[in-house]
């Protein structure tokens, strides 16, 4: 079993839809949870960062962590064609600065928002 599982998609939605992207994980020691966005032929960029359980909101984006279920989600409200990208979840057991080789990435979900 992989430490982090993520549905690769592709996920196609109409403009304005609410998008839900998810990852599950098996390591109960994970405490730091991140979502990276990767446009085609570009490097990933950090979108959201969450420590432990709970929700975090930033504009149209909401990151949610449920440690009891080992499940994290990224919600995108009022999705736009510019949101079309691959979304990668990433997580670590410690502050990444203290455990640099322990950031585990999901395989990424390809999202296409149709105008």
């Amino acid at each position: 079993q992989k430490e982090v599982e993520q549905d690769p998609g592709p996920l196609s939605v109409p403009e304005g839809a609410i998008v839900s992207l998810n990852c599950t994980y098996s390591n109960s020691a994970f405490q730091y949870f991140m979502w990276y966005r990767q446009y085609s032929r570009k490097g990933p960029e950090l979108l959201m960062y969450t420590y432990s359980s709970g929700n975090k909101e930033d504009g149209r984006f909401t990151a949610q962590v449920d440690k009891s279920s080992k499940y994290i989600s990224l919600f995108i409200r009022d999705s736009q064609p510019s949101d079309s990208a691959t979304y990668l979840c990433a997580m670590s057991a410690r502050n990444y600065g203290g455990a640099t080789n322990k950031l585990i990435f999901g395989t990424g979900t390809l999202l296409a928002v149709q105008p």
Partner: protein
Amino acid sequence: NAGVTQTPKFRILKIGQSMTLQCAQDMNHNYMYWYRQDPGMGLKLIYYSVGAGITDKGEVPNGYNVSRSTTEDFPLRLELAAPSQTSVYFCASSYPPGGPGELFFGEGSRLTVL
């Protein structure tokens, strides 16, 4: 402020050839990393460095070597290229320990080994 710069962007190698992927960052980050990204496989850590003169293996180091003589540069050397090394390679850097752990990635180097 250019961030993380990788060269070359594209390269085709023949089996057995060697080459170096260059990576430079201008953010004064101590931590630097090399990842490879294959379809359906996510990002896999090859090597990382916590500062000049210090490097360590990641998850998939075989067939690669690195060096870190300065804070800014972190080149990745491929010796005796094999088709299994066909991939997209990303260099990244991050803040010193104690930060939130955000990685700053370059735009990638696409390598094909034929």
